């Protein structure tokens, strides 16, 4: 049991009540995630309607709240089609491959616990104590990165196994996009890890404890936060990065051939991923459940309340993106990822590393900033010069040979 030794639940004997609490946490987390998906689908439709001056779903239940449930039941009773040329086993497997990573990532998110007075430990009936997260493995955030790199399998295999060209194009786009943005995502996470000096999600939240001043606004709140938000949206394949299922170009993208409950599973996975990604952003950058405890006797309530509130802000942001931003062109997508986000986040990680060493060695912090600014200026102008040279080369090649193999997008 040494792998999970950080959670006080697993210190000491492993008895039946320990097992019961563990199972309870898993079941409650799963149920909460499912409920939040139901809510999120309704919320997205309603907010997008409001932003587009429409009414949106309002028939099933109060304010149309049960619309998702009705749609789910409808999909469940639809005929399940498998294309003639499909690879049947992989076709059936793909929806689950995109659903499971979404849930597993949520396991490391601390959703409550008083970090101010009690280091996030919550007493449980039966004398046990625990953190309010399904698991706190010492590898913590690496699990999130591993799962987000596994999420590409569901989309990729769905597109390939359909035996049809639009899904295949969608999944080729998806894999290129997700592999590209994973690098920026990982580098943004590294900046957070340099500040928290631990991989565990519990320790990351604990390091940001004690009010807004400890959320590291300078170190992680600006550059890594926005890089993570953009790269995270691209990982989710949500608008404006939804080239994977661009309706005008690819019918429905990777899930064109899916129907009935299998389509519902993809739909579920997409929204579950949105909720999980918002939860991870809150954990990494906004102190997770940290917040003022206004009434002492409600100490168990406020952390979860603050977590939910912060989560809600990001759920709204993702919907807002969808309603506001036009979809990127494929070359713009690749340019943004490789030529902007990766260099910026890499440079920021190097800067934070230099600062961290400077603190240990007692270097002058102004000198560090000056040297970094100089290095950034040189590296940035070299990068811009390289990009401009490549662009000019291609433009010249296109002029000499307009029908050539260099493509129109430069």
């Amino acid at each position, binding site marked *: 049991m*040494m792998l999970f030794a950080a959670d006080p639940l697993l210190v000491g004997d*492993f008895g039946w*009540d320990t097992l019961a609490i563990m199972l309870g946490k898993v079941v409650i987390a799963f149920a909460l995630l499912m409920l939040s998906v139901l809510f999120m689908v309704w919320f997205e439709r309603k907010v997008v309607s409001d932003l587009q001056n429409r009414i949106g779903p309002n028939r099933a239940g109060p304010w149309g709240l049960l619309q998702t449930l009705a749609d789910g039941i409808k999909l469940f009773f639809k005929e399940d089609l498998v294309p003639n040329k499909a690879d049947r086993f992989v076709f059936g497997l793909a929806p689950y491959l995109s659903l499971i990573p979404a849930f597993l990532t949520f396991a490391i998110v601390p959703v409550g616990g008083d970090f101010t007075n009690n280091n996030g430990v919550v007493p449980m009936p039966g004398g046990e104590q625990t953190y309010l997260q399904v698991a706190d493995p010492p590898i913590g955030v690496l699990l999130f990165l591993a799962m987000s*790199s596994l999420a590409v399998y569901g989309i990729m295999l769905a597109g*390939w196994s359909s035996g049809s060209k639009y899904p295949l194009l969608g999944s*080729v786009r998806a894999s290129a996009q997700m592999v590209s943005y994973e690098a920026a995502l990982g580098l943004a996470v590294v900046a957070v890890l340099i500040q928290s000096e631990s991989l565990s999600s519990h320790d990351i939240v604990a390091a940001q404890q004690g009010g807004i001043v400890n959320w590291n606004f300078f170190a992680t709140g600006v550059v890594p936060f926005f890089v993570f938000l953009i790269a995270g949206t691209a990982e989710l394949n949500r608008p404006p990065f939804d080239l994977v299922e661009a309706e005008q170009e690819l019918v429905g993208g990777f899930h064109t051939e899916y129907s009935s409950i299998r389509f519902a599973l993809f739909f579920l996975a997409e929204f579950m991923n949105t909720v999980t990604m918002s939860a991870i952003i809150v954990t990494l950058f906004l102190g997770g459940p940290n917040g003022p405890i206004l009434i002492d006797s409600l100490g168990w309530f406020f952390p979860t309340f603050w977590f939910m509130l912060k989560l809600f802000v990001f759920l709204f942001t993702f919907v807002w993106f969808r309603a506001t931003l036009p979809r990127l062109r494929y070359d713009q997508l690749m340019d943004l990822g490789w030529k902007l986000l990766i260099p910026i986040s890499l440079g920021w990680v190097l800067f934070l590393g230099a600062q961290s060493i400077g603190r240990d060695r007692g270097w002058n912090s102004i000198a560090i900033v000056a040297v970094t600014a100089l290095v950034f200026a040189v590296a940035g102008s070299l990068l811009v010069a390289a990009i401009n040279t490549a662009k000019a080369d291609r433009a010249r090649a296109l002029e000499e040979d307009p029908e050539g193999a260099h493509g129109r997008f430069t």
Partner: protein
Amino acid sequence: MTDAVILAYDPEVPRQIAFFLIAAVMVFSAFRVVTTKNVVHAALYLVLVLAGVAAQFILLGAEFVGVTQVLVYIGAVIVLFLFGIMLTRAELGDDESVATERRGMAALTGVLLFGVMTYAVVDVFDDQTIDRTEASTTGQIGDAIFKEYIIPFEAVSVLLLAALIGAIVIARKD
């Protein structure tokens, strides 16, 4: 913590059972990688083998190496394999053109490699045992890489960078 203890027995027993179960899945999948005629299925069986390796690392208490295995091999290398397969020959079903005539040489190479690696592992580690009392080995690995092995680490990084630049130079014609 006063009630009946259900995990008081030797944890070596479930570890051994898990090891052999995972090893059986790995051997079967490794065999299917080279016998299946469907290229995408071969890549997916390879995913199973690599996931088994990651699981064995976690069983040994090396969770950092395990998750890195998932992150690098399953999450990046095989994804690029599949990406390449889909861009070039994405047909579904069995591919009869998969080469079979060099089977003998491939088997011989495999057996020889197995022999060399077994000898190397037995020769180096002999009957050493791993100390599994440490809660997490992640910090130790970080210290070892960035203190003791910093020169080889940087050398490998430069080598990878050279490979990256080489790939771009070869791929770009302009």
